[in-house]
Every structure is written in C-alpha cells, then in structure tokens.
C-alpha cells in the first residue's frame, strides 16, 4: 500500500514537471483563484476598516443643564453602561474638562482663547459622550435618553441633529457588507467554473494515457491519484507565485493606500492575518483543484 502511494506521488510529480507548458497554464488559471480570494480578503479588510473609522466618528452627546448635579449625571452614565449589547462606551466630561479640552484644541488660536477669557461664567456644559457598537443602535439609546427627560437634567441630545447621517451610515455599512458577500460568492462561482473547465481540458488532453492505463489493469485510484497530486502541486505553486508577486506590490503600494484609505496600513493587516490568508488560499485552491480533477477524470475511468 505504501509502495503504491509513493508511486502515485512520484507519477504526480513527474506529470507536473514533464508537462511544463500545461502545468504553467493551469497554474496561471489557479492564480486567478488566488487573486479572487485575496481580493475578497482585501475588500473585507478595507471595508471593515473604513466602516470602523466612520463609526468611530459617530456618537451621541448628551449635554446636561447647568444646575444638574454631578451625582445625577453619573447616575445616568451608570444607567447607560448597563446596556452592554448596545453601548460600547460612555465618557463623562465635566465642565472643567470641557474647558480644558477647548483650550488644548485651540491653543494656537489666540482669537478663541481671548474670546474665552472675556466670558465671565463657564460657557461649557458637562456632557456624556456615548458610542454604540453600530450606527443602528443609536436609535435605542436616543429612546432611552428621551425616557429620562422627566428627570430634567438633560439640556439637549445631539442625536436628532446627526440622525440622518447616522441612518445613512448604517444603510451604507449594511449594504457594503451585503454587496461584499454577494460579490464574493459571484466571483467564487465564476472562478470555480473556470478552474473546473481548465482541469477538465487538461485531463482530456491525457485521455489516451488514461485509456492505456486502464487497459493494462491499473486501478481507478492508481490512475486518478497522480492527477490529484498534480492538482495539489498546481495549487501550491500558484499560491507561492502569486503571494511573492503580491507582497512585492504591497510593499510598493502601501504608502499610496494609506493616503487613499485614511491611513489603512496593509502591511500591518497582512502581518496579523497573513497566515490565515495563505491558509485560505491553499485550502480553496487545493479543494477546487482536487474536486475538479476527481470529477473530470471520472468520465474516462468508466471504461
């Protein structure tokens, strides 16, 4: 059994090596598969990054009345923290802190600082800065805050002003994710079809070999095995070649991408997810190649 297995491996490797032009063609087609997987990965990473960046800029601010006690304000903060599914973070900014933030922000602007010094009483209100896990959850938080209006400590809530922006953002992010999934599935199906046909044509070109092997009494797996080995070799070769070229491009393009996509650092993303990407590339191409080879060779093994 081991002898036959070793022979199958050897025949597979010899078939891969000796039919160089055929092997290169299949490797090129499988490179398209690797490219598709990588594109889906990049689209997801860039998309998630941009969505995260956008969502971080969105929040609800609750401004308290001047006479609201700190105890009441902190109680409201505690009430909000309880909503662990919706509320990501709640930051309390006292009047003093708001003042300090303003001064720090405009430290180089003498006009603003002079205007501030002219004001006799503190112009800033204490506030809560609330961030949700997703834009769709702000409506819930706003409803809760409206229910708290009877306590008479809230001056205003910024949600109604930003509602349209938040709703639009939620609509866009949901659709981007959905589009990514649909697009990804579409590309995957197309690529599967192309790869299957390429491998089918490869095996078609070797049908005389398969027939001869059958006539000398070779078993199905003895004939099919080398084709499966070749498919695996095509897959591995295509991943290696593509990734070498891809890494070169990334090193070259990373600076430009950071400018275009709000400091999105692809090198950092690849360092943390590179292994998973390579694994996904290998698994997909090997599976695709093996299944295609198995199905394509079935036809000529029926004799």
């Amino acid at each position, binding site marked *: 059994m081991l002898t*036959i297995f070793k022979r199958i491996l050897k025949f597979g490797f010899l078939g891969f090596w000796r039919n160089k032009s055929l092997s290169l063609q299949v490797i090129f087609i499988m490179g398209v598969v690797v490219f598709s997987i990588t594109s889906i990965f990049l689209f997801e990473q860039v998309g998630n990054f941009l969505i995260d960046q956008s969502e971080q800029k969105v929040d609800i601010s609750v401004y308290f009345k001047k006479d609201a006690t700190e105890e009441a304000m902190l109680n409201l903060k505690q009430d909000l923290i309880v909503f662990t599914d919706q509320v990501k973070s709640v930051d309390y900014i006292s009047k003093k802190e708001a003042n300090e933030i303003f001064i720090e922000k405009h430290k180089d602007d003498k006009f603003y600082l002079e205007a501030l010094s002219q004001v006799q009483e503190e112009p800033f209100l204490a506030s809560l800065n609330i961030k949700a896990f997703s834009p769709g959850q702000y409506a819930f938080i706003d409803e809760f805050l409206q229910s708290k209006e009877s306590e008479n400590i809230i001056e205003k809530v910024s949600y109604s002003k930003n509602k349209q922006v938040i709703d639009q953002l939620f609509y866009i992010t949901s659709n981007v994710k959905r589009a990514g999934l649909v697009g990804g599935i579409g590309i995957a199906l197309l690529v599967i079809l192309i790869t299957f046909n390429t491998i089918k044509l490869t095996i078609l070109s070797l049908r005389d070999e398969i027939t001869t092997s059958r*006539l000398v*009494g070779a078993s199905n797996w003895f004939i099919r095995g080398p084709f499966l080995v070749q498919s695996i070799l095509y897959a591995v070769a295509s991943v290696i070649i593509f990734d070498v070229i891809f890494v070169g491009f990334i090193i070259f393009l990373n600076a430009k991408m950071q400018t275009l996509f709000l400091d999105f650092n692809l090198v950092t993303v690849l360092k943390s997810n590179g292994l998973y990407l390579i694994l996904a590339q290998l698994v997909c191409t090997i599976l695709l190649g093996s299944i295609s080879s198995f199905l394509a060779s079935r036809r000529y093994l029926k004799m």
Partner: protein
Amino acid sequence: MAQDDKPLLLMIKFQNLTKIYNTQAGKIIALSNVNLEIAKGELISVVGKSGAGKSTLVKIFTREEKPTKGGILFNDVNICALKGKKLQEMRRKIGVIHQDYKLLADKNVRENLCYVMQVVGVCDSTIDKDVQKVLEIVGIENRICHFPHELSGGEKQRLAIARALIHRPEIIIADEPTGNLDVYNSYEVISLFKKINEMGTTILLLTHDKEVVDSLKKRVITLDQGKVIGDDKKGRFIL
C-alpha cells in the same frame, strides 16, 4: 512448448459474439455470431481485410467495448460480465499490442515497462531485473531513457511488445503488429512472437499480411464482414 499434435487445454471460448454499432448512417455489424475456441499455448493468426472485425474482437476481449450479444469465456470466466477489481485483474493477465501502440507519452521506455509491474505492486528490485531482461529480448536496451516520440516505428513496436510481455501474461494479443513496419523489422517482430510462443504464451496475432501468416505455418482464423469464414489448422491464408 506449443505443438499441434499434443492435446491442449481450452483457454478462450468466444460464444455467439456479436457487436453492432448504431451510427447516424445506420447499423454496422462489426461481429456476427463469432464462435471460436482457443487453447493454451496456441499461436493463432486472425486474418481479414480492413473492417472485417479483427480490432473489434480485441476491443471486446480487453473490455474497451461491450458485446451486443454473446460473451467470451477466459479460463471459464465470462469476461463480459466482469466489473471493478475483477476486470482489472483480468486485464493484468493479458498483454495487448495495439495497432497504434498506446504508449504512455510522458514516460520513457523504462517507465513504460515499469508501469505495468507497478500497477500490481511488484517491488522495484524485481521490476529492474525484469525490465532489463525484456529489453534485451526485444532488442531496445540502448533506448531505455528515451521517450516514445523519440523512437522509430520499429522501436515503438518493440516497446509495445515488451510492455505486453513483461508481466508474464497468459495471452498476448497483437493487433497488426507489422502494420507500420518495413520488411526487416516485420521479420524480426514475427521471430520474436515465435520465441515468446515457444516459452508457452498463447498468442493471437491479428493481421492482414499474407506473408506473415504464411511464415508462421500455424492456425489461421479468417474473418470477413464480422463472420468467421475459415479456421485452418494448417496455416493457409484463404482470403
């Protein structure tokens, strides 16, 4: 050693073998109720014009095709009913030399021979010895590393014979083995068959070459339009 006057064991029996091809132009009867018996150790020439049904006979025997009616008993086993592993085992007992050689193009001479042995799991040391021996028998030991496309017609034919012979089959079927050869190579190939037959292997030689048949002086079965029209033990070519 096969001799006509010694009683021989029955090896192959063709029973009412019929093959009809359905084509767009209509039905083609390739074989029609062929009944034959072949004994172990015989050297038989099967003769007929092109289209007589000789190659169809080989294809049914090797199960490239299935018969429309009838069957073939090989060592009392109906090979037309075999499937899967049993069919593979049957194919390992026969050596076929095809008209178009059917060599493995991406394997060199040595690898083409080794393949037949590797299929059944023979160890490498045994394979090496047998390959060397068989190459010397057929006379192409100096072409061991060449690929089929680098060989002449005669060398390809010798390689095909070597591949048919190497796993010590019970029967060798040669379909037009001299069809693509010159006179000198044809003579050498036929001498080789005689030598192989003298070692005890049953040989079925399919040919339309009268000179080959006459030189053998063995049993001649004549096919015409799919029917057996002659079975002459004295080796006469009647077409």
